[in-house]
């Protein structure tokens, strides 16, 4: 409206300014440019999507998808996965006592025996899984201070407001602050292989390489200062209320895995997408000789330092052992989905072919009178 009223104004002959926006080129008496764009005659591709052209595509999709699906399905099936729930809900389960007499200060241990029916080849990945744990709750997700975790000095002593109510404790700033850090999963899991003779041996668990490389090396950083003595760096801060030990004692033996760059911590800080999730805990490297499987079939015992309460919110804790393929962990969904879609496409192709055969003929007949 405004534009047009301006155009009218311009016509009053007092001046000949540039053409107003509303009436492009209106007052000019020039012949419009004969360009392809202005005449809407730009060269154009004109795709035609018809049964005839789509039919082969359906077959092609079918032919590509079904093999991929089968491949995925087979791969997924070849992945060994073992899962054990050690929450201790049942009265007769080993961890029942721990789960009931739970208190933050007293550590409780329990051991869960299990046996593997099949050997696990190659690297085995050990996960812990939590159920009904809403790591994706909004209040929870935002309760962190990434600049503190990135080693920002000022954020260390003055954490973000988002960390409330886990920001200040005993008048000292909490490092790392926030609900996520505060609820760090602190069960300790150890795995023993039980020889048939009853003696048992501890399986070595590697705790490196479980977090994203970029997280470990860029996103998470300890505050600047004496790297060997994190105690001084963190001296003005206090540990999260639920933690047993301060952040600089997460892994006292390895300075590269201590403080904010502790990999268990980093893994935990990557909030899960769904309330039932798993997180990578440890890696069991394959044997050097490559002759024996990483985890031979037989009896095992899972020793748990049971620190983490889940029964208050009706949660579950699991330990998962899994091998990994090129597509990741075991998940039959992709394979099935690919096979299904491939078959549907193939089927549709067939149906279309039949329909099109009749439809096309009928149409051609109908065309003749015209």
């Amino acid at each position, binding site marked *: 409206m405004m534009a047009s009223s301006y155009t009218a104004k311009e016509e009053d002959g007092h001046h000949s300014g540039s053409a107003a926006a509303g009436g492009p080129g209106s007052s000019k008496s020039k012949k419009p440019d004969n360009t392809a764009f202005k005449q809407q005659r*730009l060269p154009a591709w004109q795709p035609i999507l018809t049964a005839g052209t789509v039919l082969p595509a359906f077959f092609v999709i079918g032919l590509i998808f079904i093999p991929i699906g089968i491949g*995925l399905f087979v791969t997924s099936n070849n992945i060994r996965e073992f899962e054990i729930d050690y929450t201790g809900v049942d009265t007769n389960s080993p961890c029942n006592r721990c789960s009931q007499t739970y208190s933050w200060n007293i550590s409780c241990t329990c051991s869960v025996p299990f046996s593997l029916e099949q050997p696990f080849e190659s690297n085995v990945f050990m996960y812990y899984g939590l159920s009904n744990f809403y790591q994706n709750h909004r209040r929870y997700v935002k309760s962190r201070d*990434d600049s503190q975790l990135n080693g920002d000095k000022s954020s260390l002593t003055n954490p973000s407001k988002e960390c409330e109510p886990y920001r200040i404790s005993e008048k000292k700033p909490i490092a790392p602050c926030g609900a996520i850090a505060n*609820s760090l999963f602190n069960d300790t899991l150890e795995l023993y292989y039980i020889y048939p003779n009853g003696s048992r041996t501890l399986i070595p668990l590697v705790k490196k390489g479980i977090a994203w490389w970029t997280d470990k090396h860029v996103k998470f950083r300890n505050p600047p200062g004496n790297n060997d003595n994190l105690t001084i760096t963190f001296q003005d801060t206090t540990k999260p209320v639920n933690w047993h030990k301060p952040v600089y004692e997460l892994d006292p033996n390895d300075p590269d895995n201590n403080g904010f760059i502790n990999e268990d911590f980093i893994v935990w800080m990557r909030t899960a*997408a769904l309330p039932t999730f798993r997180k990578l805990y440890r890696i069991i490297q394959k044997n050097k000789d490559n002759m024996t499987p990483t985890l031979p079939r037989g009896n095992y015992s899972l020793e748990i330092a049971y620190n983490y309460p889940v029964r208050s919110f009706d949660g579950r804790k699991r330990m998962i052992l899994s091998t990994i393929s090129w597509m*990741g962990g075991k998940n039959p969904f992709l394979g099935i989905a690919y096979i299904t879609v491939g078959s549907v496409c193939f089927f549709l192709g067939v149906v279309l072919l039949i329909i099109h055969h009749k439809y*096309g003929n009928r149409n051609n007949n109908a065309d003749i009178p015209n």
Partner: protein
Amino acid sequence: MLRRRINLLFGGDEKRVDSRTIYVGHRPCPATEAFIPPKFCDNRIVSSKYTIWNFLPKNLFEQFRRIANFYFLIIFLVQVIVDTPTSPVTSGLPLFFVITVTAIKQGYEDWLRHKADYEVNKYPVIVLEDGRSIRKESEKIKVGDIVEVVEDETFPCDLILLQSTRDDDTCFVTTASLDGESNHKTHYTVPDTEKDLQSLNATIECEQPQPDLYKFVGRMHIYKTDQEPAVRSLGPENLLLKGATLKNTKKIYGVAVYTGMETKMALNYQGKSQKRSAVEKSINAFLLVYLCILISKAVVCTTLKYVWQSQDGQDEPWYNEKTQKEKDTYVYLKMFTDFLSFMVLFNFIIPVSMYVTVEMQKFLGSFFITWDKDFFDPEIQEGALVNTSDLNEELGQVEYVFTDKTGTLTQNNMEYIECCIDGFQYRNSDSMSELDGFCVTDGPVSKLQQKAGRDKEELFLRALCLCHTVQVKEAGPDEIDSDQVDGLVSELSQPDEQRGFIASSPDEVALVKGAMKHGFTFLGLENKSMKIRNRENNVELYDLLHVLNFDPVRRRMSVIVRSKSGETLLFCKGADSSIFPRVRQEEVDRIRMHVERNATEGYRTLCVAYKQLSPEEFAVADAGLRDARLALQDREEKLMAVYNQVETSMSLIGATAVEDRLQEEAAETMEALQGAGMKVWVLTGDKMETAKSTCYACRLFQRGTELLELTVRTLEDGGRKREERLHELLLDYHKKAVQDAPPVKAGVTRSWSTANQEYGFIVDGATLSLVMNPSPDTNSSRYKSLFLQICQNCTAVLCCRMAPLQKAQIVKMVKNSKGSPITLSIGDGANDVSMILEAHVGIGIKGKEGRQAVRNSDYAIPKLKHLKKLLLAHGHLYYVRIAHLVQYFFYKNLCFILPQFLYQFFCGYSQQPLYDAAYLTMYNICFTSMPILAFSLLEQHIAIEYLLDNATLYREIAKNAMLKWGPFLYWTVLGIFQGLLFFFGVKYLFSNPALQDNGQVFGNWSYGTIVFTVLVFTVTLKLALDTRHWTWINHFVIWGSLAFYVFFSFFWGGIIWPFLKQQRLYFVFANMLSSVSAWLVIILLILLSLLPDILLMVFRKPRGPHARQMKRRLPSSGTSTIFMLSQTTSTHSFSWSD
């Protein structure tokens, strides 16, 4: 409104309510004791809306008055105030963007206006003050100032002409910039003013400012020292309008009467009422649906949240305690803020950007109309003009076309054909040599005896020469002189057509030229005497005493002249209907036959009558006219009364026939419009026979068409009361046209439905007013509905003898009828303005009758034939484009937000957003906006040539077909399907979040990013599937958008952004791409979501120019590509078919 404000401002003075008094030169007058200089506004033109100071608040206020902007502002404020899941930036940024862009655009336009204003206001003018000429800036002119204007300058304000350098006290102006009439108009000085303006002592009393350019009433009191004050009447001929240009006159002096914003020009530039298109109404309806979806989503989530929280341990588990503030909040308030938070989270379903994109599409799209070289008319060197871009798509929805006849269907290029004098017909021969007599008569009766008497002939020709307001075009004063010196020679040496005549109506020129062909030449008007050269090459002089102007109500005009012999003669010409009752009846019958025959041949006829006035009669008439002209109040009515009194008992001398040729391709255009399913109504002021013949010529009526007449003639046939007859006829026609007609089958084109009887309906103005405003006792509404039903069942309707207001009435009646059809009015003259403004779409033709129609229209085209392309091609394409744009926008936001909604079920109804804030913000602004904008500007699902050749295609989109609930439902279901697919597809993938080959797991931001990636690719590819016309721009924006998305995601996740509180997406995208499973699921989901569309496209019957060629190709196709892409220009799109 303005007047009231003025009264408020300068009020208290009761006298000035209806008139203002101006003291010429600010000199107090002896008559008024106390000279109070009245205050009027200054001469500053303010067309700008804002100043620097009030721009921001005023512009913001205006913008937030729009309901959509206000809604987004509320959402933004909620985000600022309440603890909401997304930061205020996500909705603030787009809103800010929209507001800023609009503000910049409006600011720029206002700046241009300021610049124009400045130029006008600072323009130097010369003002006479105390005997000296003082240069002033234009804005400093005050009412009462005496202003000097020199040749070729525009008048700085409305002036009363006091003095001119021309001898005859006239000046010439051209009002091309006001109404487009480029002829020179003569304006007169106020008679008897003193030559010395310094000693002039006068007051002017005139009406308060009003916008009618052609109306002015005033009175000038001239005080001379020792005489009674003289009173002179002032009319429009004394008023020089601001904006007009002085021509052929060296210098004039005038006194300013209206200044600044009170000038007629300024009053005329008030905005028109805004028209809204049907698409916009659909958008609003859809918006309501989506608002309901939004609210119900928020309600569902809020309810479920509290149900869920009431379970043990879910509300506040130990790992996720509430802050103190949250704990303290009152629970109902918490519920409310939760509801608001969900609203905010889902508010993207109603996109801000849609409004921007729609506006941009309309604005940019309208350029294609102005750019179209097919609309360029070499004659007037102009193309089409778009006055509003809001109605582009409405051009594709027109159901009723109301067209003017003269100048629209016909060229308004009049050519004198023949005349009839005293019952004898004189057909014009093209030979110019017959100066000595017109012996060429109509073929079979070509006997000399059959001619009328010589006296009658000459009287008739003199009448033609005298009774008009034509001016002879003066190239310059020199030429006039030479004309006078050796006039005969120069006249004879040049063909007569070369003589330039200027008149407001082309009929007059045709008649004067016609008289010239018969030997009587009008030489011009000098000193109020008209010079004509008769057949003997003698110059005759007639004193022009009075001109009784033409007006459409009287439908005639007269002049009163005094010949040299002292006779006072009144010549009158006008429409037969207005002349016949005023002449002696025995003369009528001889001429009526000719008139009617000429009318049926499609000529415009005028009757000429004369009357000799006795001195007494003249004295009476003269006094009456002068009195009426001086009247300040009701001058029009008084003049009319005197005119009617004078123009009686005349004697008829003859009639003329003038041909008005059809516009180029008028018939083809009309046929195409009818083929496109539009009903064409001709509304004309012309007489029935003429209009009917034009309709036949335009093929609106065809041989087989049965005409239903509802005119005064048919009403009076029965010899009964008109009302009764009307009732009877209406019922009869209704039975014929409506009840007996078989129901119209959809899709049957008119040209093929020969089996059906076609009806044409003819109604005239008098009958129409009987129908529209019947006497109160009759069942009035019944007439109207009967009438409407008959009209709707006729292929063409002709309404003749219409007054301008009746045209608008008809349009309004159809517009408000059942189903509220979209109407289009097309016309070229001032009398069409009312219907142009009334119709949904008003089209002006840049014709010969001035610019008023063009100025009031929404679109202006040079010729009628351009209407075909404007509607069938541009309108069709615009409609398809914008309909697709709207549907697509709703669809893409539905499948954008649905996963976010579903995610609430898995995150404890905590309003956790699925996507990162950057994605939420950028989705509509960057990632998916350009492809649809390009699509909505460039798409040609059917080639333009094909659209023009097959008018029936227009029917496919009639009645807003693409924005009905059906298609809307389809898009909505598609959006829901895809949204579900995206979310659950990824959810099943995440049942094991260890998706990388190193066993590491993905978190919630990876989840969102995968869904978002699928989403962006799917909606973009969906558009790609719908695109039928891939120019390089489409390729560029579609693939460019996707590339930009990938690039942006890398970039956004590649850096630790210092200004972000949380580095949520740090390397999320890169990690996602390193996972084979993520790739596989993305490909799978994209394909699966597009599958229904591909299937539907296959099953849908192929349309357009490809329909046939595709069918031919089908059996042999063995190619393995999804798309058969043919690189071809759209112009050669047929070359595909062998």
